[in-house]
Structures are given as C-alpha cells and as structure tokens.
C-alpha cells in the first residue's frame, strides 16, 4: 500500500512538474501595458458573475427604483479594473493596441510578416 501511495504521489508530481525539456515559456510580457491588460482581464473574469447580477437588477423596469439606485452604487464600488470595458485587444506579440485582427490576435504588421513567410496556415496573398 505504501507503493500505491507512492504511485499516487508520482502521478500528482508528474502533472504538476513542468517537463525537463527546454520549451519556450513566456516568462515576460512584451511591455507593462500588456501586463496591465492581463491584470484587467483576470479581474474581469473574477467579477463577471457579480457584475452580471447587479446589472440585471439595475436594467429592470419591475423592481423599485430605490433598489436600482442602491445597485448602481454597489456596482460603482467594485474595483475599476473589474469592468470588461477596460480590456483592450492588443497584439499578442507586439502589444500594439491598434490594427489588431481579432481572429489571429496579431497586429497587421506581424500578420503580414508571418503570412509572407508562409507561416500562417491557409492564408494567401489575395489576387483577383
């Protein structure tokens, strides 16, 4: 049974431990703006349910208005970074805030670079 316990521990360790092979791991973000964007996304994910419920109370014609005002105040009291509106879809590789195609999460310049080197699957220069 000690062997079984060891096996369980091994299995857990295997899942937790990263592999020993050198893989490219992103340990740094491109710049601080990207890091802040990441923080905002995480926070928005955490508070998403609560915001949804409070907004359901607010955007309502059945409940009394006093209740809705209270809900307004409550939602304003939540941390500022928890709202999804502050998230900006930046380029994943260069952190460019503008000119980012949503499907590839890349800015137009990076996209063009990869497409010309034939590293984008199914992307071809248009000619018609």
């Amino acid at each position, binding site marked *: *049974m*000690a062997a*079984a*316990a*060891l096996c*369980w*521990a*091994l299995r*857990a*360790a*295997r899942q*937790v*431990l990263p*592999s*020993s*092979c*050198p893989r490219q791991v992103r340990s740094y973000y491109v710049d601080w703006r990207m890091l802040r964007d990441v923080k905002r996304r995480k926070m928005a994910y955490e508070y998403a*349910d609560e915001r949804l*419920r409070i907004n*359901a*109370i607010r955007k*309502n014609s*059945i*409940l*009394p208005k*006093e*209740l809705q005002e*209270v809900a307004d105040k409550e939602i304003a009291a939540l941390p500022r970074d928890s709202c999804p509106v502050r998230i900006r879809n930046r380029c994943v590789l260069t952190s460019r805030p503008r000119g980012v195609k949503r499907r590839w999460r890349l800015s137009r310049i990076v996209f063009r670079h990869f497409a010309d080197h034939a590293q984008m699957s199914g992307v071809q220069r248009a000619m018609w």
Partner: protein
Amino acid sequence: MWGLAARLLAAARPHGTARPHGTARSKQKLFSTSSVLSKDKDKSTASKDSPPEGAAKKQEDGAETPKQQLLDIIGNMKVEVSYRKKLQQLKASENKKQAMNKVEGLDSEGSVPQGITEDTQRDKPLNPELVKAASAVASSLPHNKKQIESELLAQLRRHEETTDKQKKGGTINIRNVISEMTVKRQSPAQWGVRISGRISLQDEDGRRIRPERSSARSMDSRRSLKVGRRLNIFTKASTEPEHALKTVSSPTIWDLEFAKEVAAVTAQPPRNGFEEMIQWTKEGILWEFPIDNEVGMEDDAEFYEHIFLEKHLEGFPKEGPIRHFMELVICGLSKNPYLSVKQKVEHIEWFQKYFEEKKELLQEI
C-alpha cells in the same frame, strides 16, 4: 597451456587398454588413453608453448617411469579449443572420481586416501597425483614454472568444483537436451514456396500460396510443446505468498519530494514531434482528436433540472415585484444552454441573499 591441463583430466579416463599391468597400474590407466586421444583429434591450433621435448615415440611399454610417460604425452599435446573436448573433460573428471574410488585399494604408490575422494567440500586438498602431474607439466614448460603450476592447480580445483556441483544438483544432461532437437528439413517444394511467397502479389497468387503456407505451419507444429522428457533446466518459480496489505499512512513530505525527483529524472525530452504532441496532450495544451465539444463539461443533470427551476424559488415572497423579477430570471436561465445546473442554482441563491440583505430597504418602500 590450459589445453595441457585439460588433457590431463581427459587422460584420466580408465578406458580398457591392452597394456600390461605394472606397479604403476593406475597411472598407466590414467595416461594410456591420452595418446589415443591425441591421435584421434587432430583439429587443433598450434600450441603456444611447444614443449621442448618433441618426443616422437608415443606409446612405450611399461618399462618407462610414469614421469617419462607424462612427458611424452605432453610432447604430443596441442592446445585445443572445442566444446566436445570440454564435455569429455567434465565427463572424464566425473569418471576419474569413480576411478579413484575403485583404485584406492589397489594402488601402492601415491595412494589416494579415502577421505579425499569422498570428501565433497570445496576446500579439500587436490589429488596428490594430479598435483605431481601439474608440477611435471610446469617444469616441462620453459616459462614461469611457479606461475604455471599455481595456475594449473587452480584450474584443477575449478574442475573438481564443477564436478561436485554436477553430482549434487540435478544433472543437466546435455544428451537429453539434444535428443529432443531435430534438424529441420524442408522439401524443395516448400523452399520454392517460401522464396516465391515473398515476391508474389497477394491478389493474384494469394489463393494458391496460402494453403501451402498453412500446410507448412501445420508441419512445424507437429511437435507440440509438452511432448518429451523434462529437461530440468529451469527451476520452478515459487509462488510468493501475497504480502499482507500494509497500513497506509498519508504520503510524507519526503515521499512527495522523492516522487517529484523521480518524475523529474525520468521525464526525458521528446525525441520527435509525435512525442512532443503526446506531452502537450497530457498537459492539456493540445486538444484530443476527434474534438469532443463537451470536454470539461460533465453535466450529468437531466433536461428537466435545467428547465424547471421553480422549486428553487421557495425562499422568495409569493407576490410582488421580486417574485415577478425572479420568474423572469428563471425564464432566462432555463433558456441558457451554456450554464450548468449548479451555476444556475448559484445565481438564484445569490439573488435570494441579496434581497434578504435589502429587506429593510424594501420594507420602507
């Protein structure tokens, strides 16, 4: 050099010979056959240390001293390496034992004390005759005599050990093993089938070749596995009694550390792209194909649990705007296919808690 020692032992076979018996009868018995052997088996490599006496005379009658006989024999010996020789050597050493037992009463010079032959311990002293013979061999050779003698004696000891082992343990008689084996003989037709079978196509000649193949296989399986005498090569593995289950203690920190260490050491980097993809799939980076849309969603609830959520509305007042509001909430949740039942229930409970907190406010209104 070892061939000489081997020859010594081989020479110990008491084959019946036509020699006249003398005082050194046993010695004659011992050494008479070696010359016969040397004549018969001519397949040999050239001996490294050609003895200085290149005695041409091979057999002489009993007037010679034993030592002279021995030296003559050594002169004829050559180094030989063959499996058959070793076999005979082992057999000879066995028979020599028996010969010793027989001869002890008759032998006058170099009498073998009874204790030695019957003593089957490893540390027993060697047969003094053999020791004498070894010293004679060593003296005959030009190089390091002491070293040669000690090596020869060591060889003799080893041979005696093997014979003891053979006597004690189950005899792995090689004759039994070989008797069961037969040389595989194939008819020329089957040769042709085998060769052509590799080249020909399946579609055209498949029908023709397959039945012949099956006949060949049936011929091979003629000798079943369980036929024949037991060879006593393998010892039967004793079935170990199942160990009683030990009491489980929660894995200590040291166990976890050890497990982590083992996992780190055994995790080899992937040798090729396939192994890399396997590793990614295990980690969860790569999805499993064919893609399962419901991975991670283990909603075991039935459809009625999703739709009929009114039973959760028991904590709310039966009339009023709140009830109206909650019924709308429930209607919306029942139409939502993306949430699990648990999440929907959590929504409703949050609302319940929220409205209870705001009860005072609601009373004022």
